[in-house]
C-alpha cells in the first residue's frame, strides 16, 4: 500500500517540528479558523498530531502494531490541512517556534505529490493560471484594461502609463492579478499609478506581458509547477534591467521577494508599495498637499506583516497624510487577525472566510473608525466580503487611495466611491475567488 503523503517532500526539520509540538494550545487562542470552526483538526496542534501519527503509522518500526489510518481519515487530514489561511498567527505564538507557515506548505506539497491534493477549487485556480496566466479565469488580453482609458488619453486621473516593452525604466510597477482583473479593485492600480506619476518616478508596467506570480500555486502545494513558472518569470524580470520592482499586492510581494530567490537570484530589489511610498516621502519626492479628514484603522496583510515583517511603513505613510487619524484595532501588527482570504482558504472554504472576515470587520468597527485601510488588493477583496455580509458602514480603502486623495491641495474626499452594498467583489463571470 502506498503512503498517504510523499514524505520526501518534507525535510527532517519539518519532521522534527511535528515531534516538537507540546500540545500546549497557544495556537488555539489565536487561530482565526478555529474561531469560526472549532474543531481540533483545524488547529495547528491537531494537524501536528494527525500528521505525526500518520508519519509513524506508515513508516516507523512499530507500524505493524499501529492501526493504519483509513482513506477517509487521511482525506479528513488533508481537508483540515487546507482549511487554513496560512496566516502565520500560530507561528507568532508557538512557544517552540514551529514554522507553521513552511510546515503547512511543505505538507501540502507532500499531499499534492501523493495525488491527495489540492482541493478541486484549487485545481480550478491552477487550470486558470495555466490557460489564462491568471487565477481569475479572465483572458490575458484584459490584464491591462484598467489602464486603457489612460492610454487613450481619456482618464482624468492618470497620464498614459509606459509599457516596459516600449522603453526601459528604473522601476517596474507589478500590478498583480487581483488589481488588474477585479473591476472593483482596479482603482488600486489607478491610484498607485497616480501616486507614482505625482512623484515623477521613472516607472513602467508589463501590460499584457505581466505574468501571475503564482503565489496561489505555492500556497496550495503545487510546488513543482510553481518552480517551473517562477523560473521563467524570474528570467523575464531579470531581463528588464530594472532596479526596483514595486508591488501592490502583499501576496505578490512575499512571493517575489521571499520565494523567488529560492529558485534563482533576482537582479533587482523588491518593495511593497507602502515601502516605496514611504521612501518617496522621505526623499521629498512625494508631497501631500491636500487634507483627508478621515479616521481610519489599518489591517496588516499577513503576507506583508507577519510573513515579511513590514508593519511600520504603511503606518508611517498614513501618519504623513494630513488629516488622517489612525486608530489601531485591538489586534494589530504581529497579532493582527487574518481576513481569511489567503492560503487557498477563500477558494476552498468560502463560508469560513466570510465569517473570519466579518470577525475582522467587527474588530475594525469597534475602533470607531470610518474606514478600514489595508495595503493589499486581496485583503481588500477579502475584507469587502465581511463588510458586505455584515452590512457594515465601514468603508474599505487601499493605502494608495488615501495617499492619492491627499495629492491635491485642499480638503479632499477619498477619490473612489465605495462599492455598492452587496456587490460582488469579483466580476460576475468569474468562478471561485482566488487565493493570495
Amino acid at each position, binding site marked *: 500500500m502506498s503512503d498517504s503523503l510523499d514524505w520526501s517532500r518534507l525535510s527532517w526539520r519539518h519532521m522534527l517540528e511535528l515531534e516538537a509540538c507540546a500540545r*500546549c494550545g497557544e495556537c488555539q487562542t489565536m487561530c482565526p479558523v478555529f474561531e469560526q470552526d472549532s474543531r481540533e483538526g483545524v488547529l495547528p496542534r491537531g494537524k501536528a498530531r494527525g500528521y505525526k501519527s500518520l508519519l509513524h503509522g506508515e*513508516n516507523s518500526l512499530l507500524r505493524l502494531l499501529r492501526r493504519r489510518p483509513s482513506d477517509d481519515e487521511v482525506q479528513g487530514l488533508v481537508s483540515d490541512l487546507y482549511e487554513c489561511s496560512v496566516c502565520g498567527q500560530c507561528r507568532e505564538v508557538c512557544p517552540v517556534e514551529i514554522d507553521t507557515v513552511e510546515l503547512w506548505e511543505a505538507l501540502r506539497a507532500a499531499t499534492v505529490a501523493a495525488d491527495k491534493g489540492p482541493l478541486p477549487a484549487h485545481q480550478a485556480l491552477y487550470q486558470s493560471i495555466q490557460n489564462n496566466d491568471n487565477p481569475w479565469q479572465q483572458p490575458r488580453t484584459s490584464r491591462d484594461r484598467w489602464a486603457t482609458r489612460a492610454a487613450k488619453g481619456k482618464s482624468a486621473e492618470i497620464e498614459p502609463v509606459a509599457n516596459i516593452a516600449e522603453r526601459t525604466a528604473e522601476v517596474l510597477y507589478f500590478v498583480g492579478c487581483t488589481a488588474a482583473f477585479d473591476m472593483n479593485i482596479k482603482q488600486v492600480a489607478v491610484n498607485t499609478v497616480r501616486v507614482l506619476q505625482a512623484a515623477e518616478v521613472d516607472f513602467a508596467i508589463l501590460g499584457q506581458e505581466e505574468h501571475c506570480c503564482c503565489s496561489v500555486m505555492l500556497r496550495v502545494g503545487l510546488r513543482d509547477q510553481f518552480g517551473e513558472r517562477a523560473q521563467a518569470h524570474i528570467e523575464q524580470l531579470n531581463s528588464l534591467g530594472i*532596479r526596483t520592482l514595486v508591488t501592490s499586492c502583499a501576496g505578490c510581494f512575499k512571493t517575489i521577494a521571499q520565494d523567488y530567490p529560492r529558485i534563482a537570484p533576482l537582479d533587482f530589489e523588491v518593495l511593497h508599495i507602502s515601502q516605496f511610498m514611504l521612501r518617496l516621502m522621505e526623499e521629498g519626492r512625494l508631497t501631500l498637499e491636500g487634507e483627508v479628514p478621515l479616521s481610519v484603522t489599518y489591517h496588516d496583510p499577513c503576507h506583508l506583516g507577519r510573513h515579511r515583517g513590514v508593519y511600520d511603513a504603511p503606518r508611517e505613510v498614513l501618519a504623513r497624510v494630513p488629516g488622517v487619524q489612525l486608530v489601531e484595532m485591538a489586534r494589530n501588527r504581529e497579532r493582527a487577525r487574518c481576513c481569511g482570504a489567503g492560503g487557498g482558504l477563500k477558494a476552498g472554504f468560502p463560508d469560513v472566510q466570510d465569517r473570519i472576515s466579518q470577525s475582522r470587520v467587527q474588530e475594525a468597527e469597534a475602533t470607531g473608525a470610518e474606514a478600514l485601510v489595508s495595503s493589499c488588493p486581496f485583503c481588500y477583496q477579502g475584507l469587502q466580503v465581511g463588510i458586505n455580509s455584515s452590512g457594515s458602514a465601514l468603508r474599505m480603502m487601499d493605502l494608495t487611495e488615501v495617499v492619492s486623495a491627499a495629492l491635491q491641495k485642499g480638503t479632499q474626499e477619498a477619490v473612489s466611491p465605495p462599492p455598492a452594498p452587496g456587490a460582488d467583489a469579483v466580476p460576475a463571470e468569474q468562478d471561485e475567488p482566488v487565493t493570495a
Partner: protein
Amino acid sequence: MSYEHPALFYLLAFMAVAVLAVGLGARVLLWRKLASTDTVRGGGHFLRALLGPAIFQTRLLRLSRVRWLIHMAIFWGFLLLFVESFWLMALQWVVPEGGATARFFADSTGEAILGLWGDVWGLVLLIGLVAALVRRYAVRSPQLETLLEDAVALWFLLVVTLTGFAAEGARLALEGEATSWAFMGRGFMWVKPAFGLEDPMTLFWIHGILSLLLIAYLPYSKLGHVFAAPVQIALRRSARERAPASADRACGGPRARERGGEPA
C-alpha cells in the same frame, strides 16, 4: 544509603536508557530515510540559542508568566533531579572511593547538600505539576485538550515525584533525620509505616523502577518534546540570526543589494 543490588538497578537503568536511545534513534533514522536533506550551519548560533531562549522558553514568558513558571518548574525540577541521580551514579561507579570528593559526599555535610538539592528541586517539580494539574482539571483552561497521552504524562510525573519523596522519607527513617536537610523527606516519613512496608528498600525500588520506566517512555510519549522542542527552538533562532527576517526597509534579492546605488 544505596540500593542493596546496585548492579541490578544499574542494569535496569542501562536497559531504560537503551529503550530511550532506540526511541530517539529510530526517529532520526526515520527522518534520514524519508526526508529530504536540510543543511544546518552555524554551530555557535545554535549553541547560544540552545542555552538561552530554548531552555529558558523566552517566548512562552512573553505570552504568559504563569504558564512560563509552571513549565519552568516542571522542566528544571525534572532536569536537576536527573542531574542529581546522575551524580549519585557517578559517586557509585566513577568517583574514586576514598578520594576527597567521595569522602565529602559520604559525610554528613555532603549528604545533607544532596538531600537539600533533591528536596528543593523535587518541591519545584511538585509545585509545577500540581499547578499544571489544577490548570488542566480544575481551572479547565479552554486552550487545553486532554487526551490520554496528556493525562498519562502529568500523572506519571506526579507519581514518580511523590514516590521520590516517600523513598527519601524511608531513608531518613532508617538512617536518622538529625543532620538531614531533606525537609520534604521528613514530611514523607509517614508513608512507609502507613503502607505497612517492612523493607525500607521497597519504596526505593518502587521509585527507581517508575523513574526508569518514565525515562524509557519519554520518546514514545508527549514528553518527547523535551528533546525535540529545545533543538527546534535553537535551530529556528540560529537560522534567524544567520539570515535576519526582512524588515520594513530591507527587502530585495541578494544581487540587488550588492548593486546598491541610488534609489529609483
